[in-house]
Every structure is written in structure tokens, then in C-alpha cells.
């Protein structure tokens, strides 16, 4: 059965203190790995899609990387506005179009 596990569950950072979030996955053929950001009271907001091991993508202070078993989301010199829950999701090759299985997320709080 496909499984997505994110760690840590929660992360408290000082502004400027870089860190990484982990997403480990077990899937019968990875079609894509997705990172989303979710603010309180809002729906998830798309950040990145990664397709193959070794791939990296960047957006502002965020950088996502992918290996055959896990993905990392690196937050470099975070600011308070980076506070959110970060969700990782996988799309299996046997699944229907766009069907995603999500992890439980990592709640990130960045303090000034």
C-alpha cells in the first residue's frame, strides 16, 4: 500500500535559521511528488512537482529535492511569512489522473 510519512510533525525556527523537512514515501511506481503549502483556514497551495531522483526545484527561499525513497524541502533563511504547514503528496503510476496521496504535513513556525 502506498504510504507517505513526513517529519518532523512540527518545527519552530528563528528568522534566518535554515532547516529541512523530510518526506519519505513508499509507492508502487512514482509518477510525481508534489509539495504544497497550507495556511490556516486555507486550501493547500501548490509549490513544486518533482518527477525523478536527482531533480531539484527552487522558489524564493524554498528548495525541493528528490531521491528514490524521500524528498526534502529546504528552507533557507526563513522569514515569518514562511510559517505554514507544508504538505507532501505522491502520485502513483497506477493511479487515476492527478490522484494524490498526502502525508500529514509539517507545521513550521518562524519567529522574528
Amino acid at each position: 500500500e502506498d504510504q507517505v510519512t513526513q517529519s518532523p510533525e512540527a518545527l519552530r525556527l528563528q528568522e534566518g535559521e535554515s532547516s529541512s523537512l523530510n518526506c519519505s514515501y513508499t509507492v508502487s511506481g512514482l509518477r510525481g511528488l508534489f509539495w504544497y503549502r497550507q495556511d490556516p483556514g486555507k486550501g493547500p497551495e501548490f509549490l513544486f512537482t518533482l518527477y525523478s531522483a536527482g531533480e531539484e526545484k527552487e522558489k524564493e527561499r524554498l528548495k525541493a529535492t528528490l531521491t528514490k525513497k524521500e524528498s526534502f524541502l529546504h528552507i533557507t533563511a526563513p522569514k515569518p511569512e514562511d510559517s505554514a504547514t507544508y504538505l507532501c503528496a505522491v502520485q502513483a503510476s497506477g493511479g487515476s489522473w492527478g490522484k494524490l496521496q498526502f502525508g500529514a504535513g509539517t507545521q513550521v513556525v518562524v519567529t522574528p
Partner: protein
Amino acid sequence: EAGVAQSPRYKIIEKRQSVAFWCNPISGHATLYWYQQILGQGPKLLIQFQNNGVVDDSQLPKDRFSAERLKGVDSTLKIQPAKLEDSAVYLCASSSAGPGGSYNSPLHFGNGTRLTVT
């Protein structure tokens, strides 16, 4: 472009009552999804439509949940009768994934309906 619209934003009902949620996807998106997000968990797919046909409803509790997408645009999700464990945020998402579109097109989510069952 306008995002995914959902209503209502909040709903409080008693157990055994019925409730309905509405979703209007991004214009032109053929694929529509309903996800359930319980507090502290990631979203879980309930049902997926391609135009007005159901693609995947394997995790939909069909004894109490139903959904339809008339004319391949708007969609409604209904719960009847509601149970305490149905308390959650119900998220609607749409994408251009499917025939004629990219298999991996990202999902775009609405802000959800927060349901509380008392």
C-alpha cells in the same frame, strides 16, 4: 484566473442531519476532486470526476456520502446522515489533468468547508 470556489465556508449540524457542499472549479478544468481533511491529517481523496463521470470513488463512504457533477462543471457533495466522525474540512480541487492535458497537472484547491457535527 479565478480560483476554485466553495460554499459554505462553515457548517454546524447535529448528527443524523444532512448537509451539502458546493464547488465551482477553475474554468476549463476537466478534473474535479473532493478531499476530506481531518484536523492534524493530510487531505484524503473521497471522489474524483473527469468531466461529469466518476473516475475514482474507492474511498467514498457510499452508505452516507454522495456526489454529483452535473454538466461537467459545478459539483455538490452530500452527507446523509452525518456522523460525529465526519467533522472535517471538505476541500474541492480541480486540475487540467486527463485526456488532452498533462497527467501530472497540479491540483488547485479551494479554501474548503469546515464541517462540525455535534
